[in-house]
């Protein structure tokens, strides 16, 4: 019986399809090759499990602090690169086209993307990208707001509320929130922009609070969330975005906010 060569064995482990049936049959009937394969798999598994230190939850922020002073403002006519025909046709994947169309769509409404049977205009692509990003963002924001709403004073003295986890996440959400609000405004989607504007103010409060807040500070933050009906507005907008994503159609620009306001008054 001819054993598998090392090259064949490594290729087999790596999922090589050529001659796979023959190799499988041999491995199943050859204890030595089976053992070799096991040894190979064990070694690769050991490397996959090789411990990598956790850089910490705030690692990204630390990296940003290190590099930010070294980044020059971009003032070039960046959009010209997206209008080069070779760039618009180079990527074959829909995902790539969606991205390119999003980036190019700001300056050229003529960009069209074949997406299944439908051809999307640049405006529609931009709207879809925005909805996707905002939908995810609202989900994470809602979780932070919920946690704050359910937080209680803790410790022996019951004099402090620990919001350090919510504060860290609010800091992260804040940057994204600003980007989405500005993009929504640019797109004329005031429904999204209005809710994000209100959300941003609360996120700012939380992000700037100390890790442990006094009951008075905590009450002030929670009051702000309650007064604005923010949690409710976030949930309504999330539903609205889901609906728009599912229909694939863009509603009237004010539909989101109008619905929020209407529901808020109900």
């Amino acid at each position: 019986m001819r054993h598998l060569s090392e090259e064949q064995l490594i290729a087999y482990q790596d999922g090589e399809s050529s001659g796979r049936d023959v190799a499988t049959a041999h491995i199943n009937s050859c204890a030595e090759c089976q053992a070799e394969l096991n040894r190979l798999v064990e070694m690769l598994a050991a490397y996959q499990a090789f411990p990598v230190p956790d850089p910490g939850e705030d690692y990204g922020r630390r990296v940003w602090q290190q590099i930010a002073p070294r980044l020059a403002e971009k003032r070039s006519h960046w959009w010209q690169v997206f209008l080069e025909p070779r760039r618009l046709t180079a990527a074959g994947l829909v995902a790539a086209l969606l991205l390119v169309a999003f980036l190019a769509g700001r300056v050229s409404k003529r960009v069209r993307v074949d997406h299944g049977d439908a051809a999307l205009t640049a405006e529609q692509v931009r709207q879809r990208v925005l909805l996707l990003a905002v939908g995810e963002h609202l989900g994470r924001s809602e979780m932070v707001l919920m946690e704050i709403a359910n937080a209680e004073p803790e410790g022996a003295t019951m004099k402090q509320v620990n919001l350090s986890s919510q504060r860290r996440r609010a800091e992260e959400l804040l940057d994204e929130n600003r980007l989405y609000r500005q993009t929504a405004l640019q797109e004329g989607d005031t429904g999204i922009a209005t809710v994000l504007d209100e959300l941003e103010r609360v996120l700012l409060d939380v992000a700037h609070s100390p890790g442990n807040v006094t009951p008075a500070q905590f009450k002030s933050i929670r009051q702000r969330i309650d007064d604005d009906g923010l949690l409710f507005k976030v949930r309504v907008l999330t539903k609205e975005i889901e609906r728009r994503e599912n229909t694939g159609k863009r509603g009237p620009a004010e539909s989101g906010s109008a619905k929020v306001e209407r529901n808020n008054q109900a």
Partner: protein
Amino acid sequence: MNESVESVRAADAIAIERTLAGDRDAFRVLVERHSATIFRLAYRLTGNHHDAEEIVQEAFLRAYQKLEQFASQANFATWVYRIAANYTIDRMRQRKQEDARRQAPSAEMTDDVEQDPLRQIPDAMPSPERLTQSVELRRQMENALQSLTPAERIAFVMRHCDGCGIEEIAAALKSNSSAAKNTVFRAVHKLRQMLEPQFAPRATARAMGTES
């Protein structure tokens, strides 16, 4: 809550657009989202915390400088990962040359496995279960990985630790798919040579690819 691949790409696209429009702080979102992934790659490649952090910073600096070129790419995460891999290769090669110049010719390292690593590994080894938890094994795995050429190390880590496709590896190595595949194979072959006895001694000495 884990973000979906699509929503991450959408979020990245918005951050990229705003960065290119002159909002430098928009780039922060990309840095915060992808730094940990690049750190893991860099640490696996260098085995050193400080070096890994330097690679992460350099990768994002380069990504920012080249952001206009991102237009035809589908995935920022893949793109910045590739930038980090390219930079690490250049850096490792440069260091290797510097080390070679400093060392005496007899101790000079080469890209080929001309040393016999098996001689450095003791014959009698404990069970695989114990070995996988062993500090000594980790050290030897680390040494074995570091003894690969920069290209082999990158190719191995990308393929077998991060699950990258051959095309992606080829792009990082600036070579073609066939060469990338060979580089991955060579890396696995060398590591096996250096580490196989640690996992289990062969039951019988036989050359693979031969008759039993």
